């Protein structure tokens, strides 16, 4: 492992289940210290990609590297550097929370007991309760504690908050920000796949949108919110018949015009102003709106 190696490097990754292509030529790079998201609809190939990182699946084409290591050849080395919260959390149901955490800790070189204690309190989990009787939200909380305490450089989250109630989802994100990013700021890398984009909005530095196993776009979050705009114009009469070829979406309704643009906002605004609109407003698209606009166009 070299210190300059990307936290994650995926190159031309392909994987099929029989004749069904799950991932097709996926390439992306996650630099250390970044929070990187993989956005996609159900079945877009997110979980398959995650499983290749964890050596739960072997790439059929292309390769994946975690801090320069090949998960299929250096599985132990890779597992030492990352922790993982899956979308379906499963523990041995006969163990209680205390035993489960001790069991998981036994596989780790490091385990921060203080953080463990704080998080158990925060989530109000009873260490004596059997994991078989925990709710889905509580199981995810135990999995998150188990992912944070080893203080790994990479945290992989696969649809971590889907199916959880809003309070648990909110606490989950706050814990990732607060507890995981705590030590060694700048070196804690997060790789998260989700379709619940809004709640991760502020956390995400960079993201890749995938659809049917292929990359649709890779963008820096701030840059994306700057480029993608929704322009609304209202005119005294029917809107002018202009060529909005560069717009991702054009909607006309009565005297109003709504455009979604990628990077061409300033020029379009200028052209619209020439037609003296009664009202002209712009707003940035949120990451979720960018996701929808990108997949629809």
């Amino acid at each position, binding site marked *: 492992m070299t210190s300059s190696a990307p936290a994650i490097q995926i190159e031309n990754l392909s994987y099929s289940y029989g004749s069904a292509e799950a991932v097709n030529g996926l390439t992306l790079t996650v630099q250390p210290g970044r929070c990187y998201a993989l956005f996609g609809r159900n079945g877009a190939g997110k979980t398959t990609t995650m499983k290749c990182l964890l050596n739960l699946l072997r790439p059929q084409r292309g390769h994946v590297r975690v801090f320069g290591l090949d998960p299929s050849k250096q599985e132990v080395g890779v597992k030492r550097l990352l922790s993982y919260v899956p979308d379906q959390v499963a523990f041995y149901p006969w163990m209680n929370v205390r035993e489960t955490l001790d069991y998981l800790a036994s596989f780790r070189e490091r385990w921060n007991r203080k953080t463990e204690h704080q998080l158990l309190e925060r989530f109000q989990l009873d260490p004596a309760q059997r994991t078989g009787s925990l709710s889905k939200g509580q199981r995810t909380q135990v999995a998150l504690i188990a992912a944070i305490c080893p203080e790994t450089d990479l945290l992989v989250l696969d649809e971590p908050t889907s199916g959880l109630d809003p309070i648990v989802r909110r606490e989950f994100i706050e814990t990732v920000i607060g507890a995981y990013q705590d030590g060694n700021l700048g070196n804690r890398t997060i790789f998260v796949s989700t379709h619940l984009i809004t709640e991760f*909005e502020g956390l995400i530095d960079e993201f890749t949108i995938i659809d049917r196993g292929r990359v649709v776009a890779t963008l820096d979050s701030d840059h994306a919110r700057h480029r993608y705009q929704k322009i609304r114009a209202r005119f005294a009469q029917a809107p002018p018949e202009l060529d909005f070829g560069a717009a991702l979406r054009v909607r006309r309704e009565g005297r109003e015009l709504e455009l979604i643009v990628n990077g061409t906002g300033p020029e379009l605004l200028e052209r619209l102003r020439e037609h003296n609109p009664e009202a002209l407003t712009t707003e940035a698209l949120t990451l979720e709106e960018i996701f929808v606009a990108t997949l629809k166009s």
Partner: protein
Amino acid sequence: MTERQVILQINFKSGMPIYLQVVDQVKAAAASGALRPGEMLPSIRPLAEELRVNRNTIAKAYSELESLGVIETLPGRGCFLKENHSGLRKEVRRKLLIAEIDQVIVQAHHLQVARDEFLELLHERMDVLDVKRRASKDHKKEG
């Protein structure tokens, strides 16, 4: 020295980078007196958790504010609003302001706000800020 709660609001629809929104809002709080010299800013971790934004983003905002001379970091104690804001020379400060003013003038033109109305509005807004500043000073005396 107490830690003042500066209420920050992140707006993902403004199109402005998140760290710059934090920078601008701390500057605005300092201008209005909501945040006074010597007062402590919230620490990075609780602020990031509260706004649910990346901690690196808050750290970037604070380091930008520090390089602008708005705040200072005292090791082991936290970030504080500085007494004297800008270490820049007057011409530089004017030049920076002129760039901002020009943008507003362009905007005023497009919104069909004429010169007199614009100047009137400018006075009005400066008065509003003065009132805020005075109110926060009075509050300090009472406290």
